[in-house]
């Protein structure tokens, strides 16, 4: 199952990240997790939020370039090698990981956000192998 992620382009300029966070706050969009990939000139801010569409509209109104993308949130037991096993499974099926970042750590498991190529196929492979993914409903309860 996939969930929606909000991605925003930000210039590497002082205060720019703060502006994004400010406009999300103004619109009551709360952030569950974030990742920032950057070069010396620009960055891509990727966010798991409670309402990505609303967040995207709010930021676009302020002149930001935002987009909503499908990603998978994988549940991982607290076992050494859990993530490695899953990644192996994914790559065996000729699917590429484009990026990944952590979402949460709970008592019984942890969750990571993963963007893959052929995302529908990736979901099917995970499901067939009994690997848990988070649904949008579950996410909204976080």
């Amino acid at each position: 199952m996939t969930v929606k992620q909000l991605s925003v382009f930000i210039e590497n300029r002082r205060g720019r990240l703060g502006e994004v966070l400010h406009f999300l706050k103004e619109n009551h969009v709360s952030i569950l997790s974030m990742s920032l990939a950057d070069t010396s000139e620009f960055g891509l801010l990727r966010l798991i939020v409670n309402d990505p569409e609303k967040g995207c509209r709010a930021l676009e109104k302020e002149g930001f370039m935002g987009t909503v993308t499908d990603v998978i949130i994988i549940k991982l037991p607290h076992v050494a090698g859990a993530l490695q096993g899953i990644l192996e499974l994914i790559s065996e099926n000729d699917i590429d990981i484009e990026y990944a970042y952590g979402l949460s750590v709970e008592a019984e498991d942890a969750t990571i956000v993963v963007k893959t190529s052929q995302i529908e196929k990736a979901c099917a492979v995970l499901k067939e192998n009994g690997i848990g993914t988070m649904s949008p409903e579950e996410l909204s309860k976080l």
Partner: protein
Amino acid sequence: MIWSKNETLSREEIEAIQLERLQETVHRVYEKVAPYRKKMDDMGVKPDDIKSLKDLSKLPFVTKQDLRDNYPYGLFAVPKEELLRIHASSGTTGKPTVVGYTKGDMDVWTECVSRIACAGGATSTDFAQICFGYGMFTGALGLHYGLENIGATIIPSSTGNSEKQLMYMKDFGTTLLVATPSYALRLAEVAREIGIDVKKDLKVKIGLVGSELLTDAMREEMHRYWGDDMIITSNYGMSELMGPGVSGECEYLNGMHINEDFFIPEIIDPETGEVLPAGEKGELVITCIKKEALPLIRYRTRDITRLMYEPCACGRTTCRMENLQGRSDDMLKIRGVNVFPGQIEEVVLSVEGLGPHYEIVVERDGYSDKLTIRVELAKATDSFKELERIERDIKNKLRVVLGLDAKIKLESPNTLARFEGKAKRIRDLRKGV
């Protein structure tokens, strides 16, 4: 439609008119304009030495500096009481350049603009919205009188308040837009923001653009916003020569037809001042042969172009000048390389995923020049690869075109300044250059 039969004369007929008018002008200028008489005397040339058009090259040049040195009326050939109008250039550095018009000059100006407007597709049924700043700048009033003369309906909306401009366009049924290329794009952007579909909701089908370079890439970009069927032509002029109306493109887009019965063009080597043969690229020099107030002889335009005398499919026989690649004034020297902003524009507009706006920043970094190009993303993406692809594309293309490495700064939309008049896309922060 061809406005005047003088646009279709044979070469012999054109040259006969040119020679007669040139000789008259040189005699008059020698008699009435002391600074130019002095220049001619210093070179040992007399008006009677001009026996053929070839003899034009014996005459001294006039430059913008001459206009400044003789500010305000020193190069005028009529008493100032005979003037009907004064215009002036912005004069960003020092005194402005002042130009004046007699009744006869106003008529010539109107005639010239009517011709180029017709060449660009204008007719008496057009509703022409003039989005040039009215005032001391010659662009707006030049187009205004020329278009009115052919019977078009004028909407003198001037610049500013883009939303209101679009409301006029929609409600008054504007069919013809006069603007700088960059303002035409800006209007299309604002239309999108306020929910007007320029292709469907507006009737604009002709664009007469000027006062700024129109590169091929910019024209394509304009078509993308305004529709493929819009006729977009550029026209050329400068206040020193008259204003708009010196030359303009016809629908065949083969370069700009020069109104040769009023202006004699030459191409010179900008370094040596030597006249170059037809077809070669160099600095455009224009002699005004039918002006009363300010008949400049061999005025150095600083514009780089070439002349083409082959007949055009439109039926006009007048000489054409290639669309400008840049004003030599705008040329930047970066790490010893001559760079025209138009070259950078072509690259920016050719890269997928970018908007049409850009800014060129040149800085001094130690002993070397640093070139930075700021561009705006046109489409949101979640792919880092895509952003890197855009950055790499511009970099590589710039390296091929200019032979220079540039730093690329990707920006969010609407970050860069927008302009209603001439776009200012260059920031040269080097000191003492």
